[in-house]
Structures are given as C-alpha cells and as structure tokens.
C-alpha cells in the first residue's frame, strides 16, 4: 500500500468515529483539516451521517396486543393446570388464530341449517293452521325469529372473517409475490 493510500485508509477508518463525535482531539484536528480539502472524504462523512440519521429516526414498533394476549393466556392456563406445559415448536403451543377451512365449512353449514329451519317452521305453520294467532303467540314467534336471526348473524360474521383470512389474504399475498412486491412493514414506507 502506497503512503497516499495508507493515509486515505487512515481517514476512511475514522469517518464513523468523527460522525459520532468520538475522535480524540489530536486526530480531530487532522481529520477536519483534511475534510476541508478532500471532497471524497466530505461525501463519506455525509453518507455516514445519513446512515445513522435514517436508522436512528426509525419509529419504535409496537407489538400487537393479540400476540401478548395469546402468550399470557397460555401462561395463565398453564399455571392454573388447565393446559399442558409445552416447549417451543411443539404442536400445542398457542398458534396464531386462524380460520381453517373446517371452521368455514362448519359456519356455512350452520347458516344453511338455520335458514332452512326458519323457512320450514314458517312454512309449516302457514300451511297447517288457518287459526288466528293470539298476541302472545305472535310475540313469542317474533322473539324466536330474532334469536334465530342473531345466531345466523353471528355465524355469518364468523364465515365472513374466515373468508377474509383464508381466501382473500392468501390471494392478496400470492399476488404480491407474483408481482414481485414483497410485504414491507409500514414503518419503512
């Protein structure tokens, strides 16, 4: 290595220390003197400043509460003897809650069965009886219908969530992969 290259390397090695304000005073004077006459060294200092500036300004990321909720729930149930203590990687550690296709099928089946039951009840009553209904009977029927509709609504919501998680999200993710757009955390955008 020539004397000139050696000297360049000496300054190059001190760029990060200079940016951090950690150069000893005797080196600082030499470094700043060189900085005044060396454009490349100035570019290096600017680049080093940019790197730390960007990295240190990254926002703090907040862990979603659902993650800690799952962990704490698992620990509490384990402590109270309701769950089996497991080790990392085994099947019965708390899994990320996902709506499986089985869950989707169950929900869809329940919705269909509930709708069928309502139609059958209404249809049967209409076909077999021509008697006038009392107010109390009408009120009771209305309550039963509301209850059935609430159940259907819950099951429908469950099915909707399952469709979003199992069908829409994977397709969207696959599209990103196909289009070469990897998932980038919002904090970096």
């Amino acid at each position, binding site marked *: 290595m020539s004397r000139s290259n050696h000297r360049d390397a000496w300054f190059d090695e001190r760029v990060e220390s200079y940016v951090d304000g950690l150069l000893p005073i005797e080196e600082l004077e030499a470094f700043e003197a060189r900085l005044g006459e060396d454009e490349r060294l100035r570019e290096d200092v600017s680049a080093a400043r*940019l790197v730390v500036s960007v990295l240190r300004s990254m926002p703090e*990321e*907040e862990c979603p509460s659902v993650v800690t909720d*799952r962990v704490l729930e698992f*620990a509490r149930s384990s402590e109270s003897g309701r769950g089996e203590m497991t080790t*990392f*990687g085994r099947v019965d550690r*708390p899994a990320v809650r996902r709506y499986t296709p089985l869950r989707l099928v169950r929900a869809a089946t329940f919705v269909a069965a509930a709708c069928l039951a309502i139609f059958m009840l209404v249809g049967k009553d209409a076909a077999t009886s021509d008697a006038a209904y009392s107010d109390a009977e009408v009120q009771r029927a209305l309550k039963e219908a509301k209850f059935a509709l609430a159940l259907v609504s819950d099951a429908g919501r469950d099915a909707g969530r399952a469709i979003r998680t199992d069908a829409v999200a994977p397709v969207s993710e696959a599209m990103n992969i196909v289009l070469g757009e990897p*998932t980038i*955390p919002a904090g970096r955008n």
Partner: protein
Amino acid sequence: MTLEQFESAVLEHRNRVYGFALHFLGSRQEAEDVTQDVFIRLWDNRERIDVDTQLSWVLRVARNACVDQYRKRRTRDNRHDSSVDAASEVAATMEDPDQQIDNEKLRQQIMDSVDRLKEPYKSIVVLREIQDLSYEEIGVALELPLTSVKVYLHRARKMLRETLRSAYGDLLGGASISTSEQTV
C-alpha cells in the same frame, strides 16, 4: 419466575423483541410469530432465567429465531440472491443529477442494505442504531466481547455508508439533502 414476573417481563420487553424481529425480517406476520415463540420459550425456561438477564436472554432467543426464519425463507424464496445491485437500481432511477434525494427512497435503500448485511452485523446494527441498546447489552445478548461488538458495528456502518455513497455519489458532496420530512 412467578406468573406475575412473567407478565411484567412480557409487557416490558414485547416492543423490543417485536421491533427487532420486524427490522430483521421485514414482515409483521413473521415478527409476531417470532415474538410469540420467544415469550413461550421464556415461560418454558422461567425457572432457569434470572430477572436481571431477561432482556439479553430474550434478545438472544429472538435473534436465533430470526436467523432460523430468515434461512427458511431464503430456502423458499431466493429473492435476496438476486444479482441486481440495489445501489445501481437507485442510481438508475436518478436520471436528473440535480434531483434531490427522496426520503422514502433513501430510507428504503438503507433498510435494504441493512437487510443484506450478514450476521452478526445485521443484529448489531438493529440493536445499536435502531433500538439504541448499549454495547454491553448487545455483547451479552449476542455473546460477543465488547470490542468485537464495536468492531462489527464500525464495519457494518462503513459497509452501509459505502453502499449509499455508490448509489448517491455526487449528491452527497457537501450539498444539503432535502427530504420530505426533515433535512438530514
């Protein structure tokens, strides 16, 4: 460690672990999975871990889990092996030499460069420059001597600086660099 101590530890360290995993892996879903796994492991090992060493322990486990996850992902998807140099990509987009450096492009460029760092450079950069851990804490977490942490960090920052310099070249030469959020 009691259940109450475990709950305190989870609440105290969750953002640190999640943030580290997120910056390391670049995926929220994977960061969530790693965070969950780290704390399940902490619970599994609660009898053996001293309260004073919790942070370094969870960070060490998080780092190992991230490395494993990263390797699995690279096996599935070798996009990181692309021969396309990100620096030249950025340079190619800057047709106008007078163009100011765009903040988002710059941030993405630097994070992409961090993503390409090898271990332990990458972990050290994330822990020191993004998460603001002390050299001592990083040394304990990664089981490295203090001097090695300093040397690795110095080399990593130099690598990042050189990548940036090769991408932005003359724009760095003493000119102010305007960004959409701030001037850096």
